[in-house]
């Protein structure tokens, strides 16, 4: 009887160990798959065009800085300018979108006014509608206003971001009791000052996470900017990458091409290396409640 029980325990342990081995194997395989293409990109960015023609390798070569200089000084694709354009647009969007979404969420969260529920419902209802379906009217309007080849139509609309609003609203519900606002009033703080000096510091984590997400989505945005920007000095990074694809491929220095791709994703990658923990936390925190 006793040995039988021991047997069952031992069998259970073996089963669990086998299961663990399989699970780790799956996880390692998926991680390898995720990293493989980026690893190849980095390796290939260190190889010269002639070295690339020799095929596949997993070992780096010595031409990284040569490729970097070649890509950075390329005359047809002005990547430093593109990165500067993207940076200006993405940073401004990130600041505007978080500040105004928080302000709007606070307006709905902290005040009682007529039509509040209707407005809230409206924002949730339009949350999922993609930018593509109003792009036609948007491009027409911006053309009429002579705002093509300008940063403005890519920055200002980020003030109204329903998804960020929704995240902020949910965050405020969990961390911002209305007593705090009343207390601030008692102390004679004006409504705007309360928001800027008391509410904003309290929702700092949400602001940080949403700033990163807005920066990333603006940096990666391709569809609408490609319709609005056609002057070389106004183009953003994704437009330049797509341009790389349509260039005559056989004439290109491939080492340089890999370097362009590396430069395009580098700012986001660096951010991710440092902030991955809070980014991953932010994926779910506001979107769905269980």
């Amino acid at each position, binding site marked *: 009887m006793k040995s039988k029980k021991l047997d069952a325990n031992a069998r259970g342990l073996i089963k669990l160990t086998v299961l663990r081995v399989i699970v780790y194997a799956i996880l390692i395989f998926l991680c390898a*798959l995720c990293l493989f293409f980026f690893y190849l990109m980095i390796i290939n960015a260190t190889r010269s065009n002639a070295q690339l023609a020799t095929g596949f390798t997993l070992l780096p070569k010595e031409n990284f800085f040569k490729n970097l200089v070649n890509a950075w000084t390329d005359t047809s694709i002005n990547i430093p300018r593109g990165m500067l354009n993207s940076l200006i647009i993405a940073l401004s969007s990130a600041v505007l979108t978080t500040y105004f979404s928080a302000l709007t969420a606070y307006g709905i969260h902290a005040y009682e006014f007529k039509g509040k529920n209707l407005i809230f419902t409206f924002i949730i209802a339009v949350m999922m509608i993609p930018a593509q379906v109003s792009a036609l009217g948007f491009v027409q309007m911006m053309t009429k206003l002579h705002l093509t080849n300008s940063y403005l139509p890519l920055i200002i609309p980020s003030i109204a971001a329903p998804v960020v609003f929704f995240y902020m609203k949910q965050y405020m519900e969990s961390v911002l009791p209305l007593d705090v606002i009343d207390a601030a009033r008692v102390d004679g703080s004006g409504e705007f000052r309360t928001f800027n000096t008391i509410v904003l510091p309290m929702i700092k984590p949400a602001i940080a996470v949403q700033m990163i997400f807005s920066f990333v989505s603006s940096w990666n945005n*391709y569809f609408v900017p490609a319709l609005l920007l056609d002057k070389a000095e106004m183009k953003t990074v994704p437009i330049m990458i797509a341009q790389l*694809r349509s260039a005559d491929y056989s004439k290109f220095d491939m080492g340089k091409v890999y370097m362009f791709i590396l430069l395009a994703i580098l700012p986001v990658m660096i951010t991710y290396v440092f902030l991955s923990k809070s980014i991953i936390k932010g994926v779910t925190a506001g979107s769905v409640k269980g």
Partner: protein
Amino acid sequence: MAKKRTEKSGAPSSVNYAKWGYIFILPFFAVYIFFTLVPQFLTIYNSFFESYRVGLQQVGPNFVGLENYKTLFSPDSSGVVLVLKYSFNTMWMWFLGAVPQFVIALLLAIFFTSYRLNIKGQSFFKTVIYMPNLIMAAAFSMLFFTLFSRVGPIQALLVKWGWIDASFDFFSRRVTVRGMIALMNFLMWFGNTTIVLMAGIMGIDQSLFESATIDGANSVQVFFRVTMPLLMPIFVYCLITAMIGGIQMFDVPQVLSNGNGAPNETTRTLVMYLNGYLRNKNFGMAGAISVFIFAVTGILSGFVYRRLTAQYKEPTRQRRRRKGDVL
């Protein structure tokens, strides 16, 4: 001092703060109306007009009623209804990526939340699998193009191993191009889905698992009888948001096929179709396609809307279930 305070604390109820609510939401709404709502109506308006360019000559805009929609849904010279063909392309490529995305995400979510398995190094795994989600889709697609091109390293490796012939071209076959697009979509999204589903599983009341195990349920039974039914709302939410994302598929196939949907228009998506009309300034047709995409996303967002507003209708029950953290 104390007296002054009580006097003031009586004030909030007598002062009308409602106007601050309006002031605070004003910038958001002004911008939303000007940059999204008006363009949306303008787009719909355009769909009822004939307006395009032939060379340098502008035709229209002339009011044509539903003519653009009729054109959109009628077969072209070879008998194919293009909008349906491109819808099918979009759906099929989404589906090819979404099936492994959801199956693997569900598996990983269960692995990560299982106390029995007790997986170590979770933050590392999550960090790696989520990473492709942040990569610029256009750059990722360009990377695939260079890696899989006929002079690229993957082609060279597979030829060396004797798996493919030197004349093989990843970009001339429907199955390989669609496969690459699906693979990219899968890689970009399975980490995200894993994390959302994990949060969902962690939100389920732990005592339910315990009592099921005490009652003698094995792990497969626990999964199908406890985890899955309780996870269903979030799973469906994820699925529908993924579909809405799928309808917008653009950057990856656009860059991979250089905008022409090669081979033979089999990877052209709905938004690529729209983009084509926007580029050659056929605003009537672009309007009609936009309305079509709008309608499809609108129906799907109806589900998302119901899910998100439900939690406001039953706040107490919903809140109690929400526990645990992702990391």
